[in-house]
């Protein structure tokens, strides 16, 4: 799972060149409209669109795949649970449980939409540096305090994963082997506790260092945004497609997978 989603933010592509503010806004709307879809054919079109946007973004294939893998892993159970538990007409029985085609259809819809959305997320956040995306969010009227906390959290996350990994290494380097016994539980308990306390104190010290350099509650940045005509053209294209998709979906041309709208 790549934590540094912005690892390839510097590759040249139409998405990397897109003004981050407009990019986030546009693709954000796109994501929401995908989430609202309820017919399979349109969902497939949405997935195709998401894939083409991702292709445009020039992100390496396996970088994206490593994340999508997890989404698939989380969603696979639906393919079993949904058909077997769908309240409706059973097409046939599997070891005594009723199997409904509608259930399978619903599971497929969920799956396709989820993949389309995660792929688009990659296009959104994988194509600008993370802090730039965050500052763009701030320009989109996201509260400052939230943006700063997001940035801090993102930063500390690497520190911890590193620290955790290195602490683990240090444990193993001194002969620790994980077993399922009380001792292991106790060591792990101490491990988590220590990690927590250290994290706290580390963050206090980092904060003090920031104060020492004149931090007063606002992050200033060298980043400057500028939007050109092209940025808006890209945005208009995506938004129009989203609207067409949604209206086709609602038009009743296709059979919606039942999803219990209220």
């Amino acid at each position, binding site marked *: 799972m790549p934590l540094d989603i912005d690892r390839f933010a510097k590759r040249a592509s139409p998405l990397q060149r897109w003004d981050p503010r407009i990019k986030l806004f546009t693709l954000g709307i796109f994501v929401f409209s995908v989430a609202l879809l309820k017919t399979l054919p349109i969902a497939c079109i949405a997935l195709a669109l998401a894939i083409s946007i991702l292709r445009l973004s020039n992100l390496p294939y396996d970088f994206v795949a490593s994340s999508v893998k997890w989404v698939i892993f989380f969603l696979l159970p639906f393919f079993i649970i949904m058909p077997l538990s769908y309240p409706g007409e059973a097409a046939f029985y599997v070891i005594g449980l009723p199997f409904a085609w509608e259930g399978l259809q619903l599971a497929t819809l969920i799956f396709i939409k989820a993949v389309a959305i995660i792929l688009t997320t990659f296009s959104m956040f994988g194509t600008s540096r993370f802090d730039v995306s965050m500052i763009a969010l701030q320009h989109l009227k996201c509260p400052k305090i939230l943006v700063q906390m997001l940035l801090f959290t993102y930063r500390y996350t690497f520190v911890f994963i590193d620290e955790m990994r290195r602490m683990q290494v240090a444990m193993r380097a001194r002969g620790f082997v994980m077993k399922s016994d009380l001792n292991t539980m106790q060591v792990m308990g101490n491990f988590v506790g220590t990690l927590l306390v250290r994290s706290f104190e580390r963050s206090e*010290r980092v904060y*003090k*260092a920031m*104060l020492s*350099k*004149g931090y007063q509650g606002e992050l200033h940045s*060298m980043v400057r945004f500028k939007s050109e005509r092209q940025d808006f053209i890209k945005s208009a294209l995506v938004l129009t497609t989203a609207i067409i998709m949604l209206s086709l979906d609602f038009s009743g041309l296709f059979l919606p997978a039942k999803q219990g709208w209220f």
Partner: protein
Amino acid sequence: MSKNTPAIETSQLFFTYPDGHAVLKSITCTIRAGEKVALIGPNGAGKSTFMSLLNGVELPTNGQVHINGTRVEKASLIEIRRKIGIVFQDPDDQLFCPTVYDDVAFGPLNLGLPRDEVDQRVQESLALVGLEGFDERSSYHLSFGERKRLALATVLSYRPEILVFDEPSTNMDPLNRRKLINWLKSSDKTILLCTHDLDIALEVCDRCILLTDGKIVADDAASRILHNRQLLEENNLELPLALMTHELLNNILKNQDDLDEDHRFIIGNFLHAHRHVHGADGEVHFHVHAHDDLNPTHTHHDHDHQGGSSENR
């Protein structure tokens, strides 16, 4: 700031950590503007704790700190922190931005400087610590010594009047250590340098404060404290390495039985005259002792001999 205003002034400073550890016990000292002072002392003496009181990162349990005449307290912190810059001992405490560039730009941006000035300062500071071209790297993917140097750059770009360094030279390779020394020597800021590298203290500082167990044990000219073997050893320290070689040569001389008396005398005189030797790159400085009995006329006077370092340059 005139030479007479105290840049840093502490009176009767006490500090106890929340866990009940009493670390500083009545520290009173004054550092004047433009002075370069070394703070030395064994591990756990309280040096780092003392530094964190200077810009209000911690507030004293008792006693007062004044920076350029302003008392360090909640209300004055913002002002204080513009004046004093601290490079902490642990680089990981001070690097928190996604890239090296952002980390160095952080301080100047907080000062509200225009972008091109920020950019210029960043490039200058990075060059100073030998990290040119590292702009776009992540701070947390650097080697320890590189992080250490980066931490230094983040404070240098801030350009405060008073600079406080906690063990700046550790983990630096000798060339970068040498660059740092040269910068420290050439700087005209007020500098407080906390270090176990007594050779740096000897080269850079004119004054030396020896802290042990939370108390000031000695506060005198650097050359006097750093030559005082007994004082240093009583406080878990050692002569600077440069001086130690010197002393060893003296001992060898004393114990070399096959040497004739005249020769011993000549060599002894030579060594004695150059007891306080500083090694700079391709440059030779040496000081004759204040209380030098061989050359009494040279009292309180430093010599600079240019000695261009021979062969390999």
